[in-house]
């Protein structure tokens, strides 16, 4: 039953700030808690035989296990990173101690809601949980109460709510379709089993609504518009969570519905849609990355690109494509959070976000700089880092399926983005640092965070751990509906 520690830990940590006043202690406890979650869950997926379900409310198969695993990694890293970050915010009087405590509460609520999504059996519950993620994270986006951040938060919450309403509409139609064939339940398994007989037209429309709705949350263009604002204005550790996990959760929800849809109307329908959205996202993000000036916005658009890649992988389909897509989910989560932490450090150090005004990071903050440049190369798909392989897998799937045009465009956009990102960041990283700037000494927790993520992103590139491979394969089996 240790699966419940995942849910209990955030709850406990959420109420903890009421009793403990010192932000630092809170932060440390937070980190420890999420370390427990990570270890506990890894132990769980090593030992337990999936799928497991708990009194009809929670159902964990390999797919959800994989996503929970991703979430727990990123949340742990974020918690670890938050310690020092929040501490420095407090000491530099950017925020009061109470706000710091509020931060920890919100952080835990946010991660709780995110953990809930992959566990829920009931698709409506999935919807509720996702809406909860929006509501909880909205405060974290608007955390600094500046004009910009509140604006971003408003856009975030409104646009996502609209999207989510569409998703609910889709869910309802699914439910209706299911009840037409006599399955009066929103339980995923039942719906899958009923999938064959459902009315094709209904399912198609429903899936469109789902795709647009959750796609809004997942940051697929052209519904991505909230994403750069929210990511860039959110308090930096949270940007990592948003881009690393939140988007993936929406993808998870889409996947669940896609399985039913494929059962009903065949694979072609969903895969075409995925490819289309993927390409559009890639194109739009490429365009915006080229002319981007702000570091965190650039990273945000880069997340859009990666969501596009994932959706392309799902669209290209086949075992290889799906494998690449899921693997990419994990890789992007790890790497992107590393990048956001690096950006956080840099922006804190230079007090500005405009990349034209930042120079010589390598010399001014060696550790962060080195990690940042490695992370950058991982992000734009250089071996031996893991993203290279997932991108290659997806490309392979595309060529294998004979979708030459799509694969060609994919390559083209990747190359353009490669150039743009390299250009922007190499100007930031190298060159001479401001003369009066002291060389940064990162504290241990930050260093541990970076090293942890770096090891992950390299190790995944060099060798695939067996249990992960097993989980991925069985999740693909689930996606293929066997």
């Amino acid at each position, binding site marked *: 039953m240790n699966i419940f520690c995942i849910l209990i830990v955030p709850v406990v940590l959420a109420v903890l700030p009421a009793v403990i006043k010192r932000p630092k202690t809170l932060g440390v406890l937070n980190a420890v808690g999420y370390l427990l979650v990570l270890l506990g869950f890894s132990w769980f997926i090593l030992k337990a035989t999936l799928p497991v379900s708990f009194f009809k409310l929670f159902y964990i198969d390999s797919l959800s296990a994989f996503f929970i695993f991703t979430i727990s990694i990123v949340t742990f890293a974020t918690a670890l990173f938050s310690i020092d970050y929040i501490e420095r915010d407090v000491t530099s009087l950017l925020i009061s101690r109470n706000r710091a405590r509020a931060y920890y509460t919100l952080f835990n609520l946010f991660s709780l809601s995110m953990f809930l999504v992959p566990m829920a059996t009931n698709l409506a519950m999935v919807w509720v949980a996702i809406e909860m993620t929006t509501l909880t994270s909205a405060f974290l986006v608007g955390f600094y109460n500046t004009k910009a951040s509140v604006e971003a938060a408003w856009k975030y919450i409104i646009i996502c709510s609209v999207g989510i309403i569409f998703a609910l509409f889709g869910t309802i139609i699914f439910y209706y379709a299911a009840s037409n064939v006599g399955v009066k339940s929103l339980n995923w398994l039942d719906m899958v089993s009923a999938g064959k007989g459902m009315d094709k037209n209904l399912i198609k429309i429903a899936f469109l609504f789902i795709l647009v709705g959750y796609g809004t949350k997942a940051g697929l263009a052209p519904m991505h518009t909230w994403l750069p604002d929210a990511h860039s204005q959110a308090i930096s550790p949270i940007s990592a969570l948003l881009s690393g996990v939140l988007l993936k959760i929406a993808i998870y929800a889409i996947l669940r519905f896609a399985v039913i849809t494929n059962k009903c109307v065949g694979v072609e329908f969903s895969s075409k849609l995925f490819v289309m959205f993927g390409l559009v996202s890639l194109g739009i993000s490429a365009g915006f990355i080229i002319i981007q000036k702000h570091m965190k916005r650039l990273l945000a658009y880069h997340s859009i690109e990666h969501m596009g890649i994932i959706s392309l992988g799902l669209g290209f389909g086949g075992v290889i494509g799906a494998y690449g897509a899921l693997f990419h989910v994990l890789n992007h989560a790890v790497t992107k959070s590393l990048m956001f932490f690096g950006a956080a450090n840099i922006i804190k150090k230079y007090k500005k976000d405009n990349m034209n005004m930042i120079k010589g990071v390598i010399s001014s903050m060696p550790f962060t700089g080195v990690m940042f440049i490695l992370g950058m190369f991982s992000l734009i798909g250089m071996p031996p880092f893991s993203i290279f392989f997932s991108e*290659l897998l997806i490309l392979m799937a595309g*060529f294998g399926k004979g979708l030459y045009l799509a694969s060609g465009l994919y390559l083209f956009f990747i190359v353009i983005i490669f150039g743009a990102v390299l250009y922007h960041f190499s100007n930031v990283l190298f060159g001479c640092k401001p003369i009066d700037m002291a060389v940064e000494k990162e504290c241990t927790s930050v260093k541990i965070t970076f090293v942890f993520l770096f090891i992950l992103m390299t190790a995944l590139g060099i060798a695939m751990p067996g249990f992960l491979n097993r989980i991925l394969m069985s999740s693909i089996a689930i996606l293929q509906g066997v």
Partner: protein
Amino acid sequence: MENFFNIKLSFLFDPLSIFFIFTILAVCLASGVYSIGYLKGKHSSGKITYNWFLFIIFIASMLIVVTVSNAIVFLIAWEIMSLVSYFLVIFDHKEPKSIQAGAIYLIMTHIGTAFITAGFLMMHKYANSFDFISLKEACIAMPSDVKNVVFLFLLVGFGTKSGIVPLHIWLPYAHPQAPSHISSIMSGVMIKTGIYGIIRFIIFILGVDSIWWGVLVLILAGISCLVGVIYALMEHDIKKLLAYHSVENIGIILLGVGCSMVFLELNMPSLAVFSLIAGLYHLINHAVFKGLLFLCAGSVYSATGTRDIEKMGGLIKKMPITAFAFLIGAMAISALPPLNGFVSEWLTLQAFFVASLTGYMAGLKIFFGLCAAMLALTGGLAAACFVKAFGMIFLAMPRSGKIEDAVEAALSMKIAMLFLVFLTFALGLGAGIMFKLLAVVASCSTGINIGAMNFGLNNFMIMPGAVSSISLSTPLIALILGVIIIGVYLGLGNNKSRKYSTWDCGYYKLEPRNEYTATGFSKPFRIAFNFFLLPYRKVEKLRGSLYYIKSFKYETFTTPVFKKYIYYPLIGAVLHTAKFMRRLQPGSIHVYISYIFITILMLIIFMNRF
């Protein structure tokens, strides 16, 4: 993951690979020794260790690239090679120029990699494996139009790495910025991995499918030769000059390779082998003498602190060893007998001659004739360029104060340079033996059995008996030249002579300012090739009065044709689109919501299209 790529870390040590291993090791050994003296005192010890770290990875990755027998591992090693060399290019990471150079280099090479990847994946589609052997087998059954596409992709991909025109633009940026021992490796060896790729993947695995492949390669190669050497003539930054010569020499190598591709298609096996030998021979030669030249340039740079040859002069007295080494390198690259560059260019010319003698297509004959003429022109221009380079750097009087306190390079640097000088001679004089060895390499990479063809019976002369009755013996040439020179010198050399100043046309005294400059030297060429260089001049007159000009400044420039007419428009187009797309995000939430609405509407309307 592995189970999809079925990565087996298997290696392939056929003669081709071994040939490249030797080439790489020879140059890397020299530059490694060189870097000891070159970096000492310039950088902190930490920086030097960092350099060694990268250096080792660089060499290792190159070795893996040329030996591995799995396309995916090849790709990985390829990318790592590019990445490490990028870090070496921006070794001096505070200098904005090196940042820009590094960015251009990595972006260009990544574009190339994208093409290579596409090519590999298309092959993989037919082979369902990335192992070379199974790829080779699969390529036999591949439809020919797919083959053509794959060929073009691979050509563009590897061409970018090896810097054939018009994909060459990164060389003159990256080579000068890297530390000299690195630029000697990059220009000497790394760009050759592109040639390796072409030979391995196009000739060995894909197999030549139609005649226009070879012709296309030949045309590109010819253009590369001329463009490279003409730009080199205009260039006064010594390392940029050498970089442009790399473009030229890659062209010459590809002339051999392309020739052999044509013959493979026309199935004239002996000729195919012969011309591939020519190409490979020039490859290793270029590796050696270009490495040598870059090392010399490096020691000149570290002695004088400038790379501008207009500011040099008279260094032959200050640094005799370097001067000697550079002279040998210059002679080799201008194809003067009996050195190695001469042998390979002679072989290439022979290939063209014999080709057109035994060939049966009239058009091809004339085409080969033109290729030969182009090669000859290139040789002449290269010689002119190196007369300029050597003359301006080492001869006559110093042209600026920078020269005064120049000293001879450190011991390790001298050793490295002399080692390469030795190799230059060895490759020149041991032509017969090399020829035989290369025959084996060529036969393995073309898959032609040369047992029947009596290539190189003799150790002292090249006798391509299979293709023609002529032969060439560099040792004999060296011998005769030596005998005559020494004989004449001993017999008649000692003569009473006295020293006096150069004739100064009755001017008070001859100053460095009267000397002929590099710009002046290259002026005839600038005018002769103005249709391509599009030169323009900037004249600044500072007038005291209407009739009296205080100072007069005259500069001349040449238009970078490829950048101006190919790359800038492309980049401009991309940026323009991006700027246009920016309007999509006006920041108004209402617009954003309407996007969602429109999307869902469109999707529903076109639902049944999906």
